[in-house]
């Protein structure tokens, strides 16, 4: 309790507090009917003009609160924009509401709070920026290292190539010369032709590998299709039996299969490349004994086993033989050393595994196990040229540019899909929620809700189908942002049609939810 003040001080204090607080006391009966008003009504917006509204606002403040006890609600901003401390003073059967101006106090408190909050927000931004810088630095470091490596590889490539191409060519020219000579009897001619064929096959593999190597790790689009193992085995036989026989090696090709109810799809060119590389090594590095190739097709998976009784690879070279230009493992061997590195890369691209089993002096066995890239149901009456996706695959195309949407629609119809089109992201979200498509192709840069936002929203609502985003921005950052939002693939405009078709094939071939 404050002691009695001298009257002059008491009145001064009273005036000061009243001037600062602009108190307004509104007295109500129990039903919010205004009985009396004391104080600065205009200041708090309770002047005649909009008094009704101000009173309703006041009443709304106490929704759900008892009116028969004291209440205090500090710092309430009402529609007049000023802040007040609002008190409810019970006075049965009615009550009073007291408003005290809090604007000045609020301005001060806001200045402080604003500084504190902004400091925290800036701190968060800063640590994010630092993290991002770190990422960029690592990325640059990685790029520098890979450039160095690429340069070293290039030098090694040139050095080995000049040797690798010259040796078989020299030998081909030598035998041709011999064939053209006068004394070529039938036996010698046969031997010469065999040697020419061997060297030509080798050159062919070498050239294929160089192409594959040049294609690089990226840009490798798999091309799922129906694989005829019998035809593959026949080709392999045609290609390698003469080479093996020239060296008096036994050569065996076997095919084993179970007739499953599905037709698995593989990338035939890559499967062939794997087999050809492994066999061409096997024949080259085997002086006597047997070379065999076995294709086993079980439970939809393809197993390729290439075995020889050649010089073998000693344990310390197991890893190294898979690196480009390293061929220390196979003593006295010649060759660009690309073969095994490419085999490994292809197998990885196809999602398979590769096992190497070898004993120096006794032989080598490579076992490759490949999962199907996709599979088709029901082999009955299967048309091998058929598109590798289900016929009624449902695609939703979303682009605000009707020309682009139409182009995509036409392309997809050509590919045998069913196509729906939406013109903006909100419509797309609604359409997907109504009936989820197997594949969603969506433009990123659209007015209103962005494609990425729509993708995020769909993923957070549980949409599990494939999503391909299309964007005019080709930065890695834009790509990452889109993938983070939930896209499976990101394509840049203008569209490269081959790439587009490749991505659509991949998107539709991989099982949904994988």
């Amino acid at each position, binding site marked *: 309790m404050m002691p009695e003040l001298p009257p002059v001080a008491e009145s001064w204090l009273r005036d000061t507090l009243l001037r600062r607080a602009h108190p307004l006391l509104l007295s109500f009966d129990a039903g919010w009917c205004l009985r009396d008003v004391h104080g600065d009504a205009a200041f708090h917006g309770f002047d005649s003009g909009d008094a009704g509204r101000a009173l309703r606002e006041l009443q709304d403040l106490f929704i759900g609160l008892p009116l028969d006890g004291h209440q205090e*609600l500090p710092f309430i901003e009402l529609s007049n924009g000023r*802040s007040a401390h609002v008190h409810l003073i019970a006075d049965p059967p009615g009550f009073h509401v007291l408003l005290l101006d809090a604007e000045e106090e609020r301005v001060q408190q*806001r200045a402080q709070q604003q500084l504190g909050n902004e400091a925290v927000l800036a701190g968060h931004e800063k640590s994010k920026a630092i993290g991002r810088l770190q990422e960029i630095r690592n990325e640059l470091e990685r790029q520098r290292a890979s450039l160095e490596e690429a340069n070293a590889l290039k030098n090694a490539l040139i050095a080995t190539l000049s040797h690798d191409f010259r040796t078989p060519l020299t030998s081909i020219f030598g035998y041709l010369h011999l064939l053209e000579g006068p004394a070529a009897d039938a036996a010698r001619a046969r031997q010469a032709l065999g040697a020419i064929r061997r060297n030509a096959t080798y050159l062919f593999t070498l050239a294929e590998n160089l192409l594959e190597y040049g294609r690089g790790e990226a840009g490798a689009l798999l091309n799922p299709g129906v694989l005829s193992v019998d035809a593959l085995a026949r080709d392999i036989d045609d290609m390698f039996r003469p080479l093996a026989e020239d060296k008096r090696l036994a050569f065996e090709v076997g095919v084993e299969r179970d007739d499953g109810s599905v037709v698995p799809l593989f990338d035939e060119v890559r499967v062939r490349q794997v087999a050809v590389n492994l066999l061409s090594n096997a024949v080259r590095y085997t002086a006597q004994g047997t070379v065999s190739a076995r294709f086993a097709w079980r439970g939809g998976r393809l197993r390729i086993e290439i075995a020889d009784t050649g010089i073998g690879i000693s344990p310390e070279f197991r890893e190294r033989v898979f690196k480009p230009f390293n061929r220390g493992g196979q003593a006295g061997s010649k060759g660009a050393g690309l073969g095994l590195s490419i085999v490994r890369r292809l197998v990885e691209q196809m999602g398979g595994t590769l096992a190497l089993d070898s004993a120096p002096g006794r032989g080598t066995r490579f076992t490759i196990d490949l999962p199907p890239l996709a599979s088709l149901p029901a082999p009955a009456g299967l048309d091998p040229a058929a598109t590798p996706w289900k016929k009624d695959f449902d695609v939703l195309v979303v682009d605000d540019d009707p020309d682009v949407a139409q182009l995509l629609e036409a392309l997809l119809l050509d590919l045998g899909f069913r196509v729906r089109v939406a013109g903006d992201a909100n419509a797309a979200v609604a359409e997907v929620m109504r009936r989820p498509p197997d594949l969603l192709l969506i433009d990123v840069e659209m007015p209103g809700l962005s494609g990425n936002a729509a993708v995020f929203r769909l993923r957070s609502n549980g949409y599990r189908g494939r999503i391909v985003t299309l964007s005019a921005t080709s930065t890695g950052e*834009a790509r990452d942002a889109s993938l983070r*939002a939930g896209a499976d693939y990101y394509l840049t405009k203008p569209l490269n049609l081959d790439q587009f078709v490749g991505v659509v094939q991949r998107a539709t071939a991989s099982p949904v939810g994988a």
Partner: protein
Amino acid sequence: MRTHKLCMLGDFGVGKTSLVARFVRRTFSEKYLTTVGVKVDSKEVALPDREPLKLVVWDIAGRGTLDAPGANYLRGASALLMVADGTREASLAAALELLEQARRDLPDVAAALAVNKLDLVERWEVTAATLSDLRRELPVFETSALSGDGVEAAFAELAARLAT
């Protein structure tokens, strides 16, 4: 008309004031002006096949946890719109923590979550998977006070729950 008290609850800077401005006045400001205490607004909401109802929206100053003044403001509320900022994962944790605290005093309150700043989705820390899981517990809306996306839907969901 039935009138209900709805409180906006979430960490500071997540966009509570901006969501209310979008919902009530269809405006947006880039500038951040932190809320001190509470700003009270109201809006009538039309409902399909139902009487319209009035929402009295309490935009409460943002905090990571519920302190005594915050709890005081919540008394009498029948709905909570929890707000998080998608670009700050921590603000989502704060919103969930606040909800848990608020439910101790308001066991029957209707609640929804707005994860705001959808227009900045490229910079979001909160993932779709997280929200997909959260949806099992409460209605979740990705919103943007800037563009208006999802804002109406979030308030409408709460209004619909209040009407039943």
